């Protein structure tokens, strides 16, 4: 039992944090919004060159063979920075699913994929509006019984508006030619659902931490009644409550990632648990952060909403808290799963 990170894992986390601090500023995110081009190709290219985009592809496919725990730590930082490009989706969903995809589909993807250099978008009943189709090479589409791949040129799509301008989402109007396969669908579908839950959980915990940090700085600066408002207990306690929820959501993310890396049969439960905890933490972070910012928090000008909007989307996509609650309850009651001591690990 050694529930701590390796030095390598911490180095990867620190490296991406430092890159994103410089390259993914609120200013650059807003520039993307104004240009209606939130996918910044230069930043995508840099992340490719840094080895992030293909980090979890196997070494013989041009990657680093990175495990899910390290990846989760990196995705947390992507959340913290509010990174608009779908790097979490590319790594956590597409790269990670490749070995499970029916061979006809994985071959088609590889032809379009350029070892992770090009984005492959994804749509699933839990996240039905695929991101950045115009910047992608194609789309993996899950429906109720099979998985399809459609190359970008083989579909007609249009942009639809998201409440988070960093997320350019699309509607597919028609498809000319698709490669589809029902092969391995059940396993594939539960794998993508679990990864979607864990990916959004990791993003949410980073987003929640960012909102808490912004709020902590703001209430230290803003003065009323002759004092920083952060010296008032009503304000302190609101933010302390957020810190508590974040603290106890984080280990659920790391455990779920570890379970995936070990092919633990309970990994779907662990991923649902992570999303459940992180969605609750992020929800409170949004509410209390906006409140701590006062009227400024309700403006477009303040950066807080960059992260809040993404958090709202991440709570909703890949199974919201209510859906995860349902998964957890069914798992705990359907099988021989026993609760209580001895069954956590």
């Amino acid at each position: 039992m050694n529930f701590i990170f390796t030095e390598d894992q911490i180095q990867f986390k620190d490296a991406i944090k430092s890159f994103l601090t410089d390259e993914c500023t609120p200013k650059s995110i807003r520039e993307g919004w104004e240009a209606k081009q939130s996918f910044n190709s230069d930043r995508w290219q840099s992340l490719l060159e840094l080895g992030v985009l293909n980090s979890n592809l196997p070494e013989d496919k041009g990657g680093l063979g990175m495990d899910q725990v390290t990846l989760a730590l990196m995705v947390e930082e992507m959340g913290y920075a509010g990174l608009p490009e779908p790097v979490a989706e590319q790594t956590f969903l597409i790269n990670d699913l490749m070995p499970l995809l029916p061979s006809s589909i994985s071959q088609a993807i590889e032809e379009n994929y350029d070892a992770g250099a090009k984005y492959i978008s994804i749509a699933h009943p839990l996240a039905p509006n695929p991101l950045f189709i115009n910047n992608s090479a194609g789309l993996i589409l899950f429906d109720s019984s099979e998985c399809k791949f459609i190359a970008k040129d083989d579909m007609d799509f249009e942009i639809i508006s998201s409440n988070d301008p960093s997320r350019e989402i699309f509607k597919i109007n028609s498809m000319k030619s698709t490669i589809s396969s029902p092969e391995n669908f059940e396993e594939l579908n539960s794998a993508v659902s679990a990864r979607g839950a864990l990916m959004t959980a990791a993003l949410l915990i980073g987003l929640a931490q960012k909102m808490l940090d912004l709020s902590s700085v703001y209430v230290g600066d803003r003065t009323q009644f002759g004092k920083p408002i952060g010296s008032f207990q009503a304000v302190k306690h609101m933010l302390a409550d957020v810190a508590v929820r974040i603290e106890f959501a984080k280990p659920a993310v790391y455990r779920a990632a570890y379970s995936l890396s070990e092919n633990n049969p309970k990994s779907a439960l662990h991923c649902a648990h992570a999303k459940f905890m992180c969605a609750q933490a992020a929800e409170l972070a949004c509410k209390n952060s906006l409140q701590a910012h006062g009227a400024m928090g309700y403006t477009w000008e303040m950066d807080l909403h960059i992260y809040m909007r993404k958090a709202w989307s991440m709570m909703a996509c890949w199974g919201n808290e209510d859906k995860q609650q349902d998964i957890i309850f069914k798992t705990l009651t359907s099988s021989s799963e026993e609760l209580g001591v001895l069954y956590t690990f």
Partner: protein
Amino acid sequence: MKINFTNEQHAFRDEVRTWLASNVPQRPLLSLDTKEGFEQHRQWERTLNKGNWSMVTWPKEYGGRGLDLIQWLIFEEEYYRAEAPTRVNQNGVFLLGPTLMEFGTHEQKSKFLNAMATGDHIWAQGWSEPGAGSDMAAIRTTAVLEGDHYKINGQKTWSSRASYADWTFGLFRTDLNSERHRGLSFILVPLNLPGITVRPIPQLDGEPGFAEIYFDDVEVPIENLLGGDGEGWKIAMATAGFERGLMLRSPARFQQTAAKLLKLYLAKQDQCSPMIQAKVVEAWAQSESYTLSIYHTASKMLAGGSIGSESSLGKIFWSELDHMMHQTALKILGASAELSQESRDDAAKWIKGFMFSYAGPIYAGTNEIQKNIIAERLLGLPR
């Protein structure tokens, strides 16, 4: 990262389980807050000590097993799984014991640690006073040095276990001209000394879980001073750290409650709305998270890290969780939730636990104080 138990850890678990299976009393003991129940629990401390299980985390040189934190968590899991009796000497084993090891003299260690382990000395806490609760630095009970002893005058209150305990430890003002945190000393006081009056305070459940202690010219030998004269605050903070940290509430008890809550819900599901299901899941999810977090922290400490203000986060989390779980159980019980006598659905146990869960956000530093600590020390908010 490796989140699995080793073979040695599994073997240790088996050893604990086997011992508990043949030693935990078949029938539950009487409440430890009754005179007879207190003595039954003292007897259980003796039984634990015979198997060398009474202070497993203490170093071997002090008669413990020198277990690391992961082994301690395993021990606790088995302890709660076996529904073994509440530790009547929690104050000694988990609070004063580690403090003595850090600050005590050789003589103090040999006198007190062994008696603590054997159950001969059951300890009460003596921090709060009528005018010093959350504001502990407002302590006014005085201990004046007169030759080879301190003369103590004043009053302590909310002193856990003091109704039947043998000894108390706490802070006393030894420098009469001092204010606030300065001039306080950490003194160990036998509760049978002349001049001491203990008045039990019945709690919400009707039993005297704590008491007032009056000191009227009580003479305590100078050897009972722990650490230096005037160093009491520093030592008390270390004690509070042990308490709020890992040792006060191990995850196992909350996991057990969550498991029982699910069982209760499944038995009565047809009488409940879907709102209750969401709460039952939340109980599992949060107790699972608390467990993961404590194993994460324990691993960090084993790797050389330390626990500081972070322990305030945990205190808030488990105390709110415990209350939520019991509140939910009472909703599931419906009209049975007023039964305080034995019934098939264990309503009385849930009610007792429910009432006790109101104490969680208060003892060991109220949650409001913990939130101030989090805001100021972890988030960097201004004082």
